[in-house]
């Protein structure tokens, strides 16, 4: 098996440093508010990282291309699954068809009504009032 491609040590080290660097970048970027662009960026960086792992650590770059095809196929079927499912989940009650079908009747699962309004240390939730917490879906 000595005729197999042997990746030089340097390559591995460079790729690993890139991965560390990019991990830092995503964390850093996540603290900047870019709106919905945050997730796009995070996924972009993750995809770059994933490609580095696949091509270099997993040797796809030098392997038989059939293996690459198998890997890309898995991503394609994943894509099909997501996209076609979302054609339903995103468009219920949309396009002017029966808007009452869009949302669940009650959004909150019923068991929340039975939960005590205390945090796990037994303090009533009110006592945390002074702590700042982010506002979400109103205005």
């Amino acid at each position, binding site marked *: 098996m000595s005729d197999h491609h042997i990746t030089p040590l340097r390559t591995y080290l460079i790729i690993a440093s890139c991965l560390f660097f990019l991990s830092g970048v995503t964390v850093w970027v996540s603290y900047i508010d870019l709106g919905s662009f945050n997730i796009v960026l995070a996924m972009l960086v993750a995809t770059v990282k994933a490609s580095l792992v696949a091509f270099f650590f997993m040797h796809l770059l030098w392997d038989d291309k059939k293996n690459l095809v198998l890997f890309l196929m898995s991503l394609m079927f994943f894509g099909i699954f997501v996209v*076609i*499912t979302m054609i*339903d989940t995103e*468009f*219920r*009650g949309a396009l002017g068809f029966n808007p009452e079908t869009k949302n*669940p009747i009650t959004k909150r699962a019923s068991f929340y009504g039975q939960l005590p309004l205390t945090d796990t240390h037994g303090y009533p939730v009110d006592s945390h009032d002074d702590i700042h917490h982010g506002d979400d879906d109103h205005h």
Partner: protein
Amino acid sequence: MIENEKQNYLTHPKGIMSWLLTLDHKRIGLMYLVSGILFFFMGGLLALGMRLELAAPGNDFISNEQYNNIYTLHGAIMIFLFIIPAIPGALGNILLPLMVGAKDVAFPRLNLASFYIYSFGALFALYTIINGGVDTGWTFYTPYSTQSSSNVVPMTLGIFIIGFSSILTGLNFIATVHKMRIPGLTWYKLPLFVWALYGTSLVQITATPVLAITMVLLMLERFLGIGIFDPALGGDPVLYQHFFWFYSHPAVYIMILPAFGIISEIIPVHSRKKIWGYKFIAYSTLSIAFIGFLVWGHHMFTSGQSVFSQIVFSFITYFVGIPTGVKIFSWILTMYKGQVSFTPPMIYALSFLFLFTIGGLTGIFLGAVALDIHLHDTYFVVAHFHYVMQGGTIVAFLGGLHHWWPKSFGTMYNQTIANICAFGVFLGFNGTFFPQFLLGLRGMPRRYATYSDQFVELHSYSTFWSGILGFSIFFAIVNLFWSFVKKNKVDPGSNPWGGMSLEWTHTSSPPHPHNFETDPVFEHGPYDYDKVIVEKTYKK
């Protein structure tokens, strides 16, 4: 003759352990065949029980609960224990390496493991039966399946486990087709059964993992109430249906593609004619496998999914019909200027063409969303899927067994009885399931233990014929195995139908433990009936 003394895989090596630990694909295939047929009989008996109950309205024979358990077990056994694992597992295992000229599949140990995983999963299914059954329908729709007090967990666990066996078989076959072909046997020289198994395996490895994760989520829903599928906990039952059908629609092509492959072998061999449109058939296999992944939502036309997806799914559904049609027409044209003999395999193949065309075309009715809203979950659907599964897959499977029986086991069955049984299956089948189309159109819902009087006539008609169907299938299979008892051995070199692929021309019947005594050399394509005459050799 000394030839009779030749080693074959059935007798060599000997001893029970040599079977239990065998890595030989042919022995594993035989074990799949036997267990598959046992499950088929079990499912079939349950079906007859169901038909008996439905012969007349009212609860005269079994109670509602029993009926619900029976139809669920019937569906689950037939699908998850018989046609998905056992048909590729049996015929595929026995024939694939022979057809590509390999000594075994790529990963023999994995192959044995896959059989044991299947058996292990089947134990859970048997446990379910002994422990009182399960009553959710084979689709396990939430939230009923998260609430039902029947054995949902053992059954889904069994299905989860069997899923792995199916994945491993698929993986093995793909690697075998890609890497184990002998030199000269290029893609376009492969027998079409190999193409069909290749397409099947692709679907198996891509779709089955999603079934596995769906079953895991369903079990977690029961244990932890994770709230992904259960509306009481904020989940969405329609999402479950997406998950389930993302597997289960492609799974219907796991069931039918091997059958297509079998027909593509039987028709040219028994018509002694080059197959019509080789490349079209080969590529339509792949395109069916692919398009099959895009249409799952046609099972959900009344579920309340978005109007947009209704339209998309309806649109794509029709396109499965086109490559399938290409195959059907090509098979028929194959007989043109051939030399057709009406042997048992050929009779099964012709009745496949008849029945599957009905089944497939009624699939197009169901794909039309406006019409499916009326037909969904009625007996029209039941009739449709029995026409494709029983009339398509099972009939082709029986044909395949008759075709390769002398090859695989070195014995010949009584051909007259085989022909009579083949006619019995054809008539019994139509008699049982054709009335169900009418029942469905007139509004008879499925999964009903009792029904109103307006449907009596058609139901009792259907029950009557199902008995004939059952007898015919039973005797067709008994007739095959009887050849062992009768020791009706064929000559080791025999090639009774004059087949041209490697399994007929280069190895003995039954094959040598290592498949080929000498390394096979590729000489002619599997369908070159216009170039070479291969004698029909059948002695004794």
